[in-house]
């Protein structure tokens, strides 16, 4: 566990040593706020909850999380620092998990900084704060799922742009798979795939959390999803590190 923590600390400090952290957080907060209050109709709805905010989060993550994950391994390989990292007495999975957890913790910080929204609804009305909490947990799990996919894709290439584009495509697939347009199209034409699409959809899972329902099935889904992609990430690093 010491190895994971060492990599975690270095990575997390790395975000704040460069403008990456500040740009990411500011853009995330501005977009989340603007979308929630304008298109989301926060006031017009007349309800004290954060449903519009939680509805936009997956779509914001769709672009912002690949921007965060693209550099995880691609940059290490381009700079050659992967040779420094992987010749330290650390197991490869420790480096993979440490990097993933640092990026995830960074997402948690960005999400936590949306607290003025929570303060606002509590000031204006009497929301169910339990539902808001489960909504945040859902968002964090969705961030973890996107990050795990993005990190694994980042390990496959030296080029950060390729890593970014592939990750956006993969995350878009995960977000869109549960949307009515996709599922209706699939159930008319390819009914077999419709069930699979609904099964892997992150938005469907997230809806449970934003309604205040934390089901064991959803937790198992996120845990296996993240676990699988971290495993794939470790395999990809091992295969491609020296190319």
């Amino acid at each position, binding site marked *: 566990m010491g190895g994971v923590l060492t990599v975690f600390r270095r990575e997390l400090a790395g975000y704040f040593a460069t403008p990456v952290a500040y740009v990411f957080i500011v853009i995330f907060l501005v977009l989340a706020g603007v979308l929630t209050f304008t298109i989301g109709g926060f006031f017009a709805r007349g309800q004290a909850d954060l449903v519009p905010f939680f509805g936009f989060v997956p779509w914001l993550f769709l672009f912002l999380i690949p921007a965060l994950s693209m550099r995880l391994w691609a940059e290490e390989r381009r*700079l050659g620092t992967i040779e*420094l990292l992987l010749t330290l007495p650390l197991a490869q999975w420790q480096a993979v998990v440490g990097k993933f957890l640092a990026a995830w913790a960074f997402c948690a910080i960005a999400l936590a900084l949306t607290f003025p929204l929570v303060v606002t609804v509590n000031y204006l009305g009497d929301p169910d704060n339990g539902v808001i909490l489960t909504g945040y947990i859902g968002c964090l799990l969705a961030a973890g799922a996107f990050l795990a996919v993005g990190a694994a894709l980042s390990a496959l290439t030296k080029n950060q742009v390729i890593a970014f584009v592939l990750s956006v495509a993969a995350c878009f697939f995960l977000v869109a798979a549960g949307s009515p347009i996709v599922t209706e199209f699939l159930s008319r034409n390819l009914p077999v795939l419709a069930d699979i699409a609904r099964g892997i959809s992150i938005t469907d899972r997230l809806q449970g959390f934003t309604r205040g329902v934390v089901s064991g099935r959803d937790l198992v889904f996120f845990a296996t999803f993240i676990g699988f992609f971290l495993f794939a990430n470790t395999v990809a690093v091992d295969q491609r590190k020296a190319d």
Partner: protein
Amino acid sequence: MTALIEIERLTKRFGAFTAVDDVSFTVSRGEVVGFLGPNGAGKSTTMRMLAGFMTPTAGTARICGEDVVDRPVSAKRHLGFLPEGAPTYPEMTVEGLLGFCGRARGFRGSELSDRVARGIELTQLGGVRLQPVETLSKGFKRRVGLAAALLHDPPVLVLDEPTDGLDPNQKHEVRNLIRAMAPEKAIVISTHILEEVAAVCTRALIIARGRVVADATPEAFAATGETMDDVFRRLTLGAASTAVTDEAAREVA
């Protein structure tokens, strides 16, 4: 003498290209092996496999008896490795980077700060210890990489071009440092600078097209009557170019 590095029939293929072809040698405590060869001869590939960064296609290597393929983490504990080009995280400070390497090697608290301070002192980085690595010159970066490799005082050192990019004074310092550490360690350095072999190495190993073509002491090379430069050219340019020279010689005659 105990062999701290054992390389056994090490082979690495990239598709149809064989970068390292059945290389075997051992290095004992007290030896400084100069690893020579033209660019692309397989020096860095051999060193990367020895450091556990690349997986060999065939054969294996052991560091202090620990197999780099089967027990990579234990093998790496005994090894200080300076990768080619001395890569470092650009945004980290010298002290931050060395602290990270020290923590990854299991040092904590006052032992960690002592180790970092000692590494900085040995490589004379005191003046830049709080500067981000990206602001440093090539020579300083190389010394940061060297400090990271020396941090845990390992019995085995594998340094890929440790003096590349250093000015003559810094080269002299690094050579002195290597000489001072030599009796306690097994050291492999790769280099393009042939004088360096005579200056610090107890043994020179020449590799060409992935194969070891010579393995002798600098004195033995000197005893052939040729300069190190001539030996290097003769061995690494291969039979084809020798034939051309012979023909040319006959034509002249």
